[in-house]
């Protein structure tokens, strides 16, 4: 099974990539990323391909050809751990008072 992942340099994306690498059913992992993905480099897993992609509003024919055969995607881009963290810190902070 060929899967697509975005947000791979983030917290949720790292967890998803780790899970995908551990699955025997996964035959190919295409990561769309603006910058290199250290975890993917270190893993040295032949199933992983990092496709450097800058404009996430555009998916041209060439890119879609590279993604051909993919049957699913985890979209973890811009999950905003920042905002979520700010939120729960505020929440937890309040609950402590």
């Amino acid at each position, binding site marked *: 099974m060929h*899967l697509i992942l975005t947000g791979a340099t983030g917290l*949720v994306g790292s967890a998803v990539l*780790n899970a995908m690498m551990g699955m025997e059913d996964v035959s190919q992992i295409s990561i769309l990323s603006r910058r290199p993905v250290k975890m993917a480099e270190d893993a040295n897993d032949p199933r992983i391909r990092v496709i450097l992609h800058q404009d996430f*509003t555009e998916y041209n024919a060439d890119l879609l050809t590279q993604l051909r055969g993919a049957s699913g*995607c985890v979209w973890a*881009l811009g999950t905003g751990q920042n905002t*979520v963290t700010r939120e*729960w*810190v505020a929440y*937890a902070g309040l609950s402590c008072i």
Partner: protein
Amino acid sequence: MYLIGLTDWEDREYVRITTTYAVAAAQAFETLAPEGGSFQFVFVSGEGATLEPGMFTPLYARIKGETELALAAVRKASPRLHANTVRPGFVDWVEHDVIKPYVSPRAFVKQTAITLIGPIYRAAFPGSCSPSQPLGKFLAEMAMGKWEEEISGGSGFGKIGEFAIVTNHDFRRLSGLE
């Protein structure tokens, strides 16, 4: 005025990154679905995302909700695109050693906050936590379609049309965390 302008810019940038990118990708990936088959698109939203924002709804909660609505519309228009969303809570990586070297909190303050408040938070709101290891597994399995039958057939899930909203509680229950 300057501050208002900056906030507007930040809002627009947040919308672009969150909603525009996800919708464009979902529409493009629909074309990857094989003849007679489907493509699973799993949008990582967040606990607190709401479809009915009020005056005090935080930006991310409103925009994530808007993105969910937009993706539900894409799913409706493109039946081969099986888009769904998961709303994790506080993503907790403390027990997930293998990803630790790659989790780089941008600010020292944040790191300190997580170290100090993490244990309190985990004790006070266990149901709001999303341990990163089972979360990663669950999201990957969603993309593989492994939960499709359970979720599309299940009545306990929030839905916009066929688009399912998997809450953090749902994720924890399905992953055997509670």
